[in-house]
């Protein structure tokens, strides 16, 4: 896939006007995600009511791919259960890594707009970082990274219990 198709209008729009951008007044869970290779840093705050994601917000410094991914992710998981969110995390990661074809059965919906990153190995982590950070927050891990032991390209994603 040509890299041009990655910068589709929906991604550019979410980059320009990110949804759920900011902080939550009362959060039950939060995590900071780093991509030390490019300096990206993303904070995700959650308000969990039992198993439900009642509120979610993010902020930080990142590229357009990462910011749009975070914006669309927060829009999609808001109101969902944590196990639904974990399914999406797994599917999004598999899609970005090229293990899941967007035409296969999945729950990603319009998130398949990010399928193009699988052809841009250096940008895969940009798209994954928000999801990786959400997974950490859901599992009460306060800090994660795209590198070393936390690298989502290699480390297994454990389903939240």
């Amino acid at each position, binding site marked *: 896939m040509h890299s041009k198709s990655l910068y589709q209008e929906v991604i550019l729009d979410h980059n320009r006007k990110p949804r759920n951008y900011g902080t939550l007044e009362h959060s039950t869970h939060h995590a900071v995600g780093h991509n030390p290779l490019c300096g*990206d840093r993303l904070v995700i705050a959650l308000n969990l009511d039992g198993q439900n994601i009642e509120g979610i917000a993010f902020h930080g410094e990142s*590229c357009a791919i990462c910011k749009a991914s975070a914006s669309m992710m927060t829009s999609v998981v808001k109101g969902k259960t944590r196990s639904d969110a974990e399914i999406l995390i797994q599917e999004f990661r598999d899609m970005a890594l090229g293990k899941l074809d967007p035409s296969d059965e999945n729950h990603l919906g319009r998130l398949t707009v990010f399928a193009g990153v699988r052809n841009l190995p250096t940008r895969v982590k940009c798209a994954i970082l928000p999801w990786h950070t959400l997974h950490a927050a859901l599992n009460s891990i306060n800090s994660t990274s795209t590198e070393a032991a936390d690298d989502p390209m290699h480390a297994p994603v454990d389903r939240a219990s």
Partner: protein
Amino acid sequence: MTSLDSIVASQPILPFDIESIRADFPILKLKVDGHPLVFLDSAASSQMPQQVIDRLVRYQTTQHANIHRAVHYLSELATAEFEQARHKLQHFINAREDREVIFTSGTTESINLVMHGYGRKFIGPGDEIILTVLEHHSNIVPWQMLAEERGARIRVVPINDAGELLIDEYENLFNEHTKFVSVIHVSNALGSINPVKQMIEFAHAHGVPVLIDGAQAAPHMKIDVQDLGCDFYVFSGHKMCGPTGIGVLYGKADILERMQPFKGGGDMILSVTFEKTIYNIIPQKFEAGTPPIAAAIGFGAAVDYLSAISLEAIAAHEHALLNYATEQIRLLPGVHIVGNAALKAAVLSFVVEGVHPHDIGTLLNQQGVAVRTGHHCAQPVMQRFRIPATSRASFAFYNTMDEVDTLVEAISSAQKVFA
């Protein structure tokens, strides 16, 4: 031409026939996504001319055997070619003797060699090592490791907003504890050319030895280590049209002789018993094991190639490219050049308002333009300018003014995507 506008709008005349130079580099004929490759990442690694490729092939096809070992024809031939390469490198930097040229795997290993061979022997608790904000991580981390191990201290020379070292601050850092200075010659992140000769003279007046990291300087300007007076000068083959995996540590013979070996093994010894090993003389003392023979010979061919064009002509051409690119990029609203030192070489770092460098890198790649994005292994420089990253276009003598135009148009069209 009299008006500034007409100067800005026209491309300067080049000091040599650029098309015949480009014809030497087969990789420059590549297309990326249907666009001609515009390779502006030579500061990370430069491309290789056919002359060097042919030399590697000739060595592997007709000359290869292990060196300094056997009496047979090929071993003697390979040894002679390897030592000839050392001789070429000696002349290239005007070292006094060829034994002052140590082959290493690259600049990083050269610095690590000096850290282990000199630093661990002569730097102790309370001693101070002077570095600068502009250093590449490879000229920071080894000294931090040494400082931690030996209880020494790192002192850092600051820069101004243009990316120039504050020489007064450098001189003020000297005291009776100062034991070593290690400075980058040309900043890989900003392109600033540092006044290393002046810095070496000042350090020597205080009896302090100096290492110059020339990884970004040796490809772009004539280096004369005797004129500079430095104690060590380090650089890499792959940034100078040579192969990867080969570099040079130049050191003054008397200092190299006083240093302890870095790696132990074959070739670096005169005799070995389980009771005692006698080390070889320089340069072999620092060249344990089988070296990258082909890469060293290729490096020799690369400096022959550069010398045939002449470093003066290369510097003049790259200076013209840098000036033209600087003028053109300054005309783009919302694009800011990071690093505006009065003396710069071949590197242009920039940020675009509202667009992350990684997005710039991907969008430029769509036009076939290869730039580096990120912190350029110089995080202290990024912290100094309070930015996470930049996009960096770096120029070599095989780049053209038309390629600068393509770069500027590609930046402009990337801005439109995000408008």
